[in-house]
């Protein structure tokens, strides 16, 4: 049977159907395979791209019994297989019953080029663009001419730009001086790392070749282009650092805001605040365990659940312990520390002392690619937005609601507020619950950035204390300012001096800062603030 296909191919007969084409991949001759690959590409069948990329990955097999070509996912001895030409699942089989469709280096090149050309025809401009980017590394004249052709039909300006870059990269190899020069100059606007690699390579080659005036011009232009690129990359690196800083700041904000409110209202520091964060993160973990098929919604469910759960724990702590320590803030600190030990150990005993990974839903993974040198991950972006929303919500609550009015009254003058009929212990309990609840949702957010473990709270608590010290209490703007400043400062110092030294410097800075403003950046003033 296979001979007849081979004959048909030899005769230049192009009327073979797609399944027949695919079936002919079972041939052992690489030359024939090359022709078949070309034809699969030209057929533009929906399965074409999949088959070709799987072939490149070495996942195309055929069944030894009936020679059906399949895509196989092999795990140890068993394999789940899919019919290659139809995409229809064929269930499980054993590895022994399959035979691999082999390829060689020449075929790999052919495959690369075919896959690229197929992708270039894809409807989605993003896929077209990334197909071109894929080609940056192995550009040759043939590829370049394909891209030239594509340039004529391409409408999307982002894809056009990428195409031009690819062509320019190839043009670097040109023997014509002016072409080379033009390519070097035009590439100075590109931020792709491959471009930098190509230019660096060029510079190296040039410096070893004979030093004619032309080469010298080329070297100089290359160096200028590189310099221009590097400086732009540098700027984007800084923007990225700020972004990381803001995202760290947002996490700190979410944690510290609860601390600041409780400290403002009750004058106590809750050392178990970090554990509220941890409990919030574990809430996400447990919800994902309970609803393994709904990871997409797990975060949305976790936020209110964590808020209520940790909020109730907070109210429990306030009613059960803290209210007996009223007026003894230092003892409160110790008691809440004891609670934090108990909560940590409880999680170690009930769940596990090991860290646990929380999955990130589809819609939060990936990144927003601004340009090749700068991409912002969605999870961090969402956390920033989320933190700001929470802050806005809190401001609304504190400034517009009756509860908020009472909280502010107690913050400013407890005894006066009490005298005016505000139930201060009610306010205390709910403030504490609110602060803990916010820490809980901070934990949900944090579970998207890092693993969840019993010590999660400890890692962040001291930093968020520093935010409170730096920003001052009783004012949410102060917390926002403090969190962002510390977040950005940390991330800015990190690249040059390492995370640890950056942290130490920030701590020392705060100790010095309180010389000037012992009560933080946005402190309450006046006589009532003295005690």
């Amino acid at each position: 049977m296979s001979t007849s296909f081979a004959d048909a191919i030899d005769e230049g007969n192009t009327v073979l159907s797609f399944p027949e084409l695919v079936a002919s991949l079972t041939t052992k001759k690489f030359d024939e395979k090359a022709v078949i690959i070309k034809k699969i590409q030209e057929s533009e069948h929906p399965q074409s791209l999949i088959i070709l990329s799987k072939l490149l990955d070495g996942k195309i097999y055929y069944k030894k019994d009936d020679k059906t070509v399949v895509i196989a996912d092999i795990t140890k001895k068993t394999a789940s297989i899919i019919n290659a030409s139809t995409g229809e699942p064929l269930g499980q089989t054993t590895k022994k019953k399959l035979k691999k469709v082999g390829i060689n280096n020449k075929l790999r090149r052919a495959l690369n080029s075919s896959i690229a050309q197929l992708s270039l025809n894809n409807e989605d401009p993003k896929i077209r663009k990334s197909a071109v980017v894929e080609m940056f590394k192995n550009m040759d004249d043939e590829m370049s001419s394909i891209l030239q052709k594509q340039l004529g039909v391409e409408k999307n300006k982002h894809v056009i730009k990428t195409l031009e870059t690819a062509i320019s990269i190839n043009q670097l190899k040109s023997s014509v001086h002016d072409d080379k020069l033009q390519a070097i100059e035009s590439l100075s606007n590109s931020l792709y790392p491959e471009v930098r690699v190509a230019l660096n390579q060029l510079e190296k080659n040039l410096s070893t070749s004979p030093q004619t005036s032309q080469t010298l011009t080329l070297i100089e232009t290359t160096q200028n282009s590189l310099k221009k690129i590097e400086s732009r990359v540098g700027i984007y690196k800084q923007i990225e650092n700020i972004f990381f800083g803001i995202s760290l700041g947002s996490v700190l904000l979410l944690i510290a805001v609860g601390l600041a409110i409780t400290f403002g209202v009750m004058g106590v520091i809750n050392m178990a605040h970090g554990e509220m964060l941890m409990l919030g993160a574990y809430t996400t973990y447990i919800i994902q365990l309970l609803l393994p098929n709904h990871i997409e919604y797990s975060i949305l469910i976790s936020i209110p659940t964590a808020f209520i759960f940790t909020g109730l724990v907070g109210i429990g702590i306030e009613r059960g312990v803290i209210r007996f320590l009223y007026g003894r803030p230092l003892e409160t600190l110790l008691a809440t520390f004891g609670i934090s030990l108990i909560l940590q150990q409880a999680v170690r005993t009930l769940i596990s002392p090991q860290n646990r990974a929380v999955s990130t839903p589809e819609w939060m993974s990936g990144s927003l690619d601004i340009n090749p040198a700068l991409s912002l991950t969605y999870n961090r972006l969402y956390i920033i937005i989320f933190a700001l929303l929470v802050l806005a919500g809190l401001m609304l609550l504190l400034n517009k609601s009756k509860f908020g009015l009472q909280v502010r009254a107690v913050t400013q003058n407890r005894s006066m507020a009490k005298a005016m009929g505000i139930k201060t212990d009610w306010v205390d309990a709910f403030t504490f619950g609110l602060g803990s609840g916010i820490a809980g949702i901070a934990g949900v957010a944090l579970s998207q950035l890092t693993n969840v473990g019993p010590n999660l709270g400890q890692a962040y608590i001291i930093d968020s204390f520093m935010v409170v010290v730096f920003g001052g209490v009783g004012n949410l703007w102060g917390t926002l300012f403090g969190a962002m400043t510390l977040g950005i400062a940390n991330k800015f110092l990190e690249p040059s001096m390492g995370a640890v030294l950056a942290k130490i410097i920030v701590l020392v800075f705060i100790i010095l800062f309180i010389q000037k403003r012992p009560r933080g950046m946005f402190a309450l003033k006046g006589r009532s603030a003295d005690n």
Partner: protein
Amino acid sequence: MEKNESILYLNNVSVSFDGFKAINELSLYIDKNELRCIIGANGAGKTTMMDIITGKTKPDEGEVYFGDHIDLTKKDEAEIANLGIGRKFQKPTVFENHSVFENLQLALEGHRNILSNLFYELNEDQRNKIDSSLETIGLEAEKYRMAGELSHGQKQWLEIGMLITQNPQVLLVDEPVAGMTHQESERTAELLTSLATRHSVVVVEHDMEFVRSIARRVTVLHQGSVLAEGTMDKIQNDRKVIEVYLGD
């Protein structure tokens, strides 16, 4: 009125907290060995004024001088206290876990540095001084009691006693008779009057009857500045004062 040598001099002092002017261009002069009463409604700036004199609060503007040359705005609380300005707080502030005797002993003038306190031995002279203070405030019987166990009025006296033992030139006394019985008030009045023979005494008080019983010269504060100043009779008939106190 005869011109006395002034010991405390506030000129055009202003201070504000978050935009609220607690003291507004206040000018005030206290003479040597004068007994001055300062009255005013809540929020008139009486306590803030004391905070400024004793260095707790720095004024935004204005001059504060002690004697002729000492600029108090450049000094901190401890320096000002050592210059000879003593203060009694509105809420009686004594060391509750110390005995009455120890409270007075700590107030005793001199020995303000660390080492001399570490190797301190009380001598006969100092013991007598403390005893005489005890006698002045009438707490001889309570000498070894914990200050925390004293009645409110006794704490007030103890605090005044500590001031006396500290032997300052100026005593700033904030609401000395708050919470006192009528009899206790009378004794306090006698005490303060007798103190004014050797010290300058500035008394802030709400209790008008008490003020009348001791006052020679009265200053009325209103919204952070001086509304009126003069003898009690003059003040009582001052139109502005009547307006502020009774008008609205």
